[in-house]
Every structure is written in structure tokens, then in C-alpha cells.
């Protein structure tokens, strides 16, 4: 039993980027719980100004090594919206394929390398290599398949080489698609084994219903395109995002928070599965069933399970897209649309692995960037993560300090925060709330 404690986790491990947890318990009462971001700011929105549009989209992927394709994709969509550029159906399919590859790659990284070690009782997945080499190799095999899928479409996953405004600057060779398709099919067995592994874990039982926000598309499971929907009932076009999503600073934290209808909301795999369950592929729905994930699910720890479900979806959907590409043939003349820069502003919204990502750029008549605004999934999740921590902590304060710290670290990891991405996240000198 902890009557009074001050728990400080400096630089939570196995997350992307730098964040700290602070918990203060006084006489058995929880006085303060917070997650602060201490990442070194990189100022993308400032230095993208004056750069040519091709440089803007090139640099956009450098925001994050894990979701580089999503950042590039959002930047391309925003720029194309500003210029009125239309990409071909073929480019649309190729971009969707790249997104499926990235979601798969990023989720496998989180599922196996960042989240699973907590349940397996090892400091890292690599420490499992001697005891359970099969599991480690399965993780690496799945990651490699995702990587190779991205490589085929865009040259490499981190950072995509060849995904440009208007399409692609090279002609895709359809030959490797056959073997790639075969590997994707084989990977489905690996996903089944992943579910079996996770079914042996005891996922903390904790529920807090919140507002779930994601893109949604009437015809397919939205990753690359769609409108923004909230589980509270709105459906808005991405270019209206500023009217609905309010970013606001809070004195006690080191980040800009975001609100939609409620003071906080959740984005990411769980939000997508909750909002768009009916559009998941048959195999993904089967995996959800095997993993006992039923939408709507209000347990944030199940975000990792929702990622496994999305991996299943990405495999099956990628196979479908490959079949479509093979059927219609890769046409060289459809790789690159003509791009004519013009003055204007555009918004691009996509589902990055960790949730809805907005890029907005204004360009001058020569196609040089005059302003940039980036709204990142992790920044949107921070308010919700803290609300979950406040709701979850009272149930665990009876444990010793180390156990409390570990339980909260696991909750942070379940969100799969990507702090490098958090271009708005800032350390302020604000005072602690009263």
C-alpha cells in the first residue's frame, strides 16, 4: 500500500521519442498524474517556409522514421489539393498499397518490439532470442514483408524515395508482385500465431469510454482517404478540420492538446476499429473474433490488439490491391500527372499508424511554401492518455511504486506514442495546476 509517493519515470522506454510520467500520491489520494513530452523541438512548420513544394514533401517524411509514408502522403495530398493536381487511379492504388505496408510495418514494431516485452517479462524482444527464437523471427519476418511491400511501391519505408506530387517518378516493375503476394498470403499464418501469443497475455481490464475520431470511407476501411468522423456523431470534410479540432495549450503540460466534442478524444487503431469495424476485411474480422475484440471497445490496452486486427486487414487488402494492379497492368503513362503550381492552400488528412494526421500548406504562385500546419496523432491523443491515466491510477495505487510506474508505462505504450512526430509538442515553463 502506497500512502504517499512521488513516482517519476524519466524517458519512458520502448516508445518512439521522449516522454516522462509523473505521479503524486498524498495520504492515499491521487494528487497528480501526468505524461509530459520532453522531445527536442525540431520546428518543421517554421523551416518548411520558403521551400519549394517538392522539398516540402521530401522533408515532410523526415518528421518521423516510423510513419514516414503517412507524413509524405499527407503532404502530397495537401499539396495536390492546393494545386488542383489529380493523380491517376493507378497512383491512387499504389499509394494505398504503400499505406498498408506502413501500417503493417509500424504495428508489427509496436506489437512485438515495444508492447510484447511487458507481457513476456523481458526488457526487449531481442532478449527473447535465445529462449524463443521462433517468436523473434516471426516478428522480423513480418516486418521484412511490410518493408519489402513499401520498397516495391516507394523505394524504401524510411524514408520513401519515390512518392511525389502528382504520382511516381519511375515506372513500377510488376514482376516482383507475384512473390510478394505469396509472402503476404503466408504472413496470414504469422498473424494467427500472433493472436495466439497475445491470447496468452493478461491484458489489464480497464475501460473508459471516450470520443473516438478517425477517417471513414463509405466503400473501404479508411487509411489513405475518407472524411473525418467522431463517434459522437459528426462527419466532416478534412479541410474543415480547423473548425472542429481545437488545439489548445495547457499551463501544466508540455504539449498542445486537442479537443473535438469533448475535452479529449482518442485516435489510432482502436478508434478506427471502433468507427469502421464493418469495413475490415473478412480475415481481419476473424482475427478480431479470435482475439475477443468487439467494437466498440473502451479498453485502451486493447489498442495493441486492434493493431493486430489491422495487420490482418492490411495483409488481405494488400493482396486485393496487388490483384487489381496486375489485372489492369502498370501503365507508364499513368505514373506521373502533370503538376502546375499555383497560389493556394490545401489540407491532406490520412490515417497514420497512430491515428489521424493533418497536413496543411499554403503556397505562393511559384509553388514555394508560405505556411505549414501539422496536427499529429500523438498530440491529439495526449489529453485522452492523461484522462485514462487519471481513471486507471486509483485502481492501482495500492501497489508498490515500481508496480505503479510499470503499469502506467504499459498504458502509455498501449497508445504507441510517436513523440518525434509531435511537431507541436513543447516544453513550457508553465506552473503546476492548482
Amino acid at each position, binding site marked *: 500500500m502506497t500512502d504517499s509517493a512521488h513516482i517519476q519515470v524519466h524517458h519512458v*522506454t*520502448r*516508445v*518512439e521519442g521522449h516522454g516522462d510520467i509523473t505521479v503524486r500520491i498524498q495520504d492515499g489520494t491521487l494528487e497528480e498524474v501526468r505524461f509530459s513530452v520532453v*522531445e*527536442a*523541438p*525540431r*520546428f*518543421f*512548420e*517554421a*523551416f518548411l*517556409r*520558403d521551400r*519549394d513544394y517538392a*522539398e516540402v514533401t*521530401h*522533408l515532410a517524411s*523526415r*518528421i*518521423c*522514421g*516510423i510513419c*514516414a509514408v503517412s507524413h509524405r502522403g499527407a503532404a502530397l495530398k495537401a499539396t495536390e489539393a492546393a494545386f488542383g493536381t489529380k493523380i491517376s487511379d493507378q497512383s491512387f492504388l499504389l499509394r494505398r498499397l504503400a499505406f498498408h505496408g506502413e501500417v503493417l510495418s509500424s504495428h508489427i*514494431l509496436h506489437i512485438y*518490439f515495444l508492447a510484447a*516485452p511487458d507481457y513476456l517479462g523481458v*526488457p*526487449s*524482444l*531481442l*532478449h527473447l*532470442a535465445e529462449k524463443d527464437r521462433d517468436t*523473434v523471427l516471426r516478428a*522480423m519476418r513480418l*516486418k*521484412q514483408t511490410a*518493408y519489402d511491400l513499401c520498397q516495391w511501391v*516507394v*523505394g*524504401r519505408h*524510411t*524514408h520513401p*524515395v*519515390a512518392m*511525389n506530387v502528382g504520382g*511516381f*517518378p*519511375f515506372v513500377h516493375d510488376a514482376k516482383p508482385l507475384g512473390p510478394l503476394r505469396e509472402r503476404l498470403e503466408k504472413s496470414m499464418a504469422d498473424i494467427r500465431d500472433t493472436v495466439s501469443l497475445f491470447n496468452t497475455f493478461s491484458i489489464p481490464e480497464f475501460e473508459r469510454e471516450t470520443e473516438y475520431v478517425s477517417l471513414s470511407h463509405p466503400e473501404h476501411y479508411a487509411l489513405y482517404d475518407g472524411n473525418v468522423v467522431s463517434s459522437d456523431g459528426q462527419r466532416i470534410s478534412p479541410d474543415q478540420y480547423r473548425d472542429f479540432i481545437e488545439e489548445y*495549450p495547457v499551463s501544466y503540460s508540455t504539449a*498542445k492538446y486537442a479537443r473535438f466534442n469533448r475535452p479529449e478524444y482518442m485516435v489510432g487503431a482502436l478508434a478506427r476499429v471502433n468507427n469502421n469495424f464493418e469495413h475490415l476485411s473478412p480475415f481481419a474480422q476473424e482475427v478480431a473474433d479470435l482475439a475477443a475484440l468487439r467494437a466498440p471497445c473502451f479498453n485502451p490496452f486493447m489498442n495493441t490488439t486492434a493493431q493486430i486486427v489491422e495487420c490482418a486487414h492490411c495483409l488481405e487488402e494488400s493482396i486485393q490491391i496487388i490483384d487489381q494492379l496486375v489485372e489492369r497492368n502498370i501503365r507508364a503513362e499513368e505514373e506521373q500527372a502533370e503538376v502546375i503550381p499555383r497560389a493556394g492552400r490545401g489540407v491532406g488528412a490520412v490515417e497514420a499508424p497512430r491515428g489521424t494526421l493533418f497536413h496543411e500548406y499554403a503556397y505562393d504562385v511559384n509553388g514555394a511554401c508560405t505556411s505549414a500546419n501539422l496536427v499529429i496523432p500523438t498530440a491529439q491523443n495526449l489529453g485522452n492518455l492523461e484522462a485514462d491515466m487519471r481513471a486507471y491510477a486509483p485502481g492501482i495505487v495500492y501497489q508498490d511504486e515500481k508496480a505503479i510506474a510499470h503499469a502506467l*508505462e504499459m498504458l502509455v505504450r498501449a497508445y504507441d506514442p510517436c513523440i*518525434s512526430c509531435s*511537431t*507541436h509538442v*513543447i*516544453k*513550457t515553463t*508553465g506552473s503546476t495546476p492548482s
Partner: protein
Amino acid sequence: MTDKGQKPRIAFFDFACCEGCQLTVLQLEEKLLDLLQHVEVVEWREAMSGKADSHDIAFCEGSITREADVQRIKTIRNTANTVVGLGSCACIGCHNALKNRWPMEDVVKVVYGSEAGQLDSIPARPITSVVNVDYRILGCPASLPEIDRVIKCILTGQEYPLPNQPVCVECKLNDTLCVLEKGEVCLGPVTRCGCNAICTAYGDACHGCRGLMDEANLMAAVKVLTAEQLHPIMEVVARRYDVGQDQVRQWFTMYNTPDLQLKEESEQT
């Protein structure tokens, strides 16, 4: 390097960056498991829990952008026998240094608004400008074959001299159509090779992410790459260009701002 029979202790540290270079290390896949037979990974915040008091080999990723970073990298340097600059943010400063081209107050205001408090942010520079590193791995992201080679060199006690040829050499070996011939600006002629010219192979131009070669003739490059150029060999190409010197200079800043600032300073003195 260590007591006989003891595996060298490896640690990974990150400064301001996208952490993509650490991820590239994970792409060593099975080789990584083989590597673990020869080394002990004692700290890797992104991939494992736990922190170590000491380490023999430190892989450092990212750029120095805060006063606090300066002390941190010095401590890492003092602790480690071997320091590796992992990726271009660590070795050349990369796009992190693009903010250096604007007044700091302006940069803070644009991103965080006027309500922002005092930020610990200093002009971005590579780790290599604060401490000596024993090995450099270049690229955005770090080149995977180079990671592999450098690890082998460290474990066998050899130096790793960076290749000092332009990207053009590898591009030609790939049989890729010259980007300059397409009439686009390409930094291949002055950029250090070692990436297997992946960007040009996929139809893009070289953006210079591996940094400038030693003794790169920048003035000549700027002339050759602009409409004003008069080089006879480039005459056919020249007709296709409509870019000016400013635009070409802008291209050079994308990854090489710290290097260019040094060059500009030395030209002025």
C-alpha cells in the same frame, strides 16, 4: 576494448531526429541476432527497457539542438571507448539545421505561438561538431550496408574510412539515366556515395543527404547546375535548365546547412 572474454557493451542514444536510423538498425534482422552473440546491448530506449551506467560502444543518432544536449553527448563520449555517429543528423546536421536560417524567436513563434515560454533551443549542429566520433555512418536514413560494415570494423578493431566518391559513380554502375540529362537539379556530383544511389534509381534526384564529399567544388557545381552555366560538356543539358543560382543554393541547404555555413564563414574571412 574490454576485458578478455567479456562482450563489448553497446548502447544507443538519440538526440533531435526522427529515430529512423535506429529503426534501420532493426532491419539488420537475423544479422542482429547474430550480432548479439558478440555484443551485449545494455541501453536502447526505443527498443528495450532499462538504463546502463556504462557502455563501451555508443551509437548516437540525431542533432544537438539544446544546451542540455551538449553536456549529454560529452558525458556519453567520456564514458564510451567508441562513439559512432549514426546517420546524417548526427554527422552533418541534416534538415534540423534548416531552422538556423531563421531568427530563433521567429521560429518559436511560428510553431508554438506567442504563448510559448522560454525554449531551450540552440542552433542545430551535428554531434560531430561537439565531440570526436570514431565512426561515421551517413544517410537519411543511415545506410544499412554501412551500418553492417561499421559494426564489423568496430568488432575487428579496424577503421572505417568513408567512401570519397560522388553518388554519380554508383548511379552510373546502376545504369540509371542521368538526372541532369532530364533537366533536373541533382546533387549527385558533389555528394558522398555509399547509398547505392537509391534515390536516382527510383526516379528522384540526389538531395545530398550523405553530405558533401571532401573538397567538393561547390562553386563549380552551382555553375554547372544553373542556366548560366557555360561548361561545354553540359551544353546539351544546359538548355533544359531554367533554375537560377539561388534555387540551386537552396537545394544544397536541405541537408548541408552547417557545412555550408562553415564554408561561407571561411570565404568571408
